[in-house]
């Protein structure tokens, strides 16, 4: 079975975490998933070494050297050598309120063009975040990119559905399609303001939807106002 396969190469020389079974037994699966069969159990009082993690599953080695996969739920019932329960942070609503980093991907529309975007944010406080965003828009008339940085203020971060507003600045590069107009690429500065909602899903994941108004300051001292909306999937750490 899987258990017979050679163990993964050892990483850093630190000793693995040792956990003691307190429930009647700990089930070990042959693979990192609920459907993989249980071929070994570890009895109460015995211990396992935790080797590494994959999603919600931990590869462990028993005292007899047998390898298997234990679920995060089952391991949360074990204790460490000092008797304290083994706690795993898989993400909670309180983590949604207080965290350091977040990131995500979006799909949306920008001035009539289709928008694809990815963002990363760092929390200054539970309410205030610094965000950076990279987006590509693909339209019938022109394509281009947006790069921006700004601040986001989340009003009630502890709510499962929490509203926020954003304000920032950035650059846009517009590449008109050759078939329509004379292809002159433009690099312009922009500023944006907007707002939206964050919806906590589960674990470390949330949905984020927002609407922005982008003001593009062109080289001809005029400006364009472009609407932008986006909806995406994000996670926090």
């Amino acid at each position, binding site marked *: 079975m899987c258990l017979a396969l050679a*163990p993964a190469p050892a990483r850093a020389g630190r000793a*693995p975490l040792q956990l003691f079974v307190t429930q009647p037994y700990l089930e070990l699966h*042959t693979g990192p*998933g609920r459907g993989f069969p249980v071929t070994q159990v570890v009895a109460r009082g015995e211990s396992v070494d935790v080797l*590494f993690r994959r999603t919600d*599953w931990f590869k462990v080695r028993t005292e007899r050297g047998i390898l298997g996969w234990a679920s995060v739920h089952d391991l949360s019932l074990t204790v460490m050598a000092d008797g304290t329960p083994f706690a795993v942070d898989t993400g909670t609503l309180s983590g949604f309120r207080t965290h350091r980093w977040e990131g995500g991907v979006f799909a949306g529309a920008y001035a009539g063009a289709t928008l694809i975007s990815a963002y990363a944010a760092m929390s200054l406080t539970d309410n205030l975040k610094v965000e950076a965003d990279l987006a590509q828009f693909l339209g019938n008339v022109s394509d281009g990119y947006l790069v921006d940085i700004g601040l986001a203020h989340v009003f009630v971060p502890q709510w499962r559905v929490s509203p926020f507003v954003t304000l920032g600045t950035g650059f846009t590069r517009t590449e008109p399609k050759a078939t329509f107009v004379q292809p002159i690429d433009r690099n312009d500065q922009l500023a944006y303001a907007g707002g939206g909602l964050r919806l906590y899903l589960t674990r470390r994941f949330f949905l984020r939807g927002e609407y922005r108004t982008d003001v593009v300051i062109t080289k001809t001292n005029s400006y364009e106002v472009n609407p932008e909306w986006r909806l995406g999937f994000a996670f926090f750490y």
Partner: protein
Amino acid sequence: METRIRILLLSAALGAAVLAGTGCAAHPPARTAAAPGAGNGTGGNGSPAVTDNGSPGGTDNGSPGGAGNGGSSGTNGAGANGGDAGGDSGDESPVIVQPQVQRRSVTVPHIGARDVELGAYYGILSIEDFGAQPVQGLKADYHITEDFFFEGSYGQSRAGETSYELLSGGVQLLSNAERRFTYYNLSLGYNMLPGEIFIGHTVAMTSALYMIGGIGSVDFAGEQNFTVNFGAGFRVLPTDWLSLHVDVQDLVFRDDIFSVYRLTNNLQATVGISVFF
């Protein structure tokens, strides 16, 4: 006859002594065998009953007081010989053991999460109207749960010639640079059929048949177009850190290469290898 009676009496006395020596003195019959030797034999006084008393009176029972004391030590008989000492022992409060061992503190070592897969792939991409050409690319996967994963991929290929170009002799619809076909996709995958595959009697490898779909962009023929990709793949893990893939995907986008907007389907079949980090 007289000799026989002597032998019987002797053997009876010996038997009693042996019984007393084996700690049976507590039994009433042993009391009767009050030989001096039997009294020492009730070193059985050092039995749990004595230590339970924990009092000096209890240990006094260890004196050659005879088997009778030994027998009664199981009860409160300690007081019989121990006198006052035995009585004092009853008033003592139980001693609470205070361990002088410092609590062991455990620093939780970081448990590495191998949820990220980085890899490369190679295969065939059928660019609509431009023939099937080799395609190669890089991809990164992040396994969110045992069911779902994110995938970002970047691939490139080179378009061939349309049948019109081949038949017309010399006509080129696209320049050399415009034949370059590059794309990226951001996809969400679902491990639809996880399982194991078996090789021989001893080797089993975890595997999964997954569906995948997402959005992205194609840069081809001098223009960029929004792309929707969807398909299915099969992943097998020979070890915990290595993964082999077979993927079939359709890249769908609208282009106007022939001055008419049309939806194109570009099928891609690849094999790949990835490493978990």
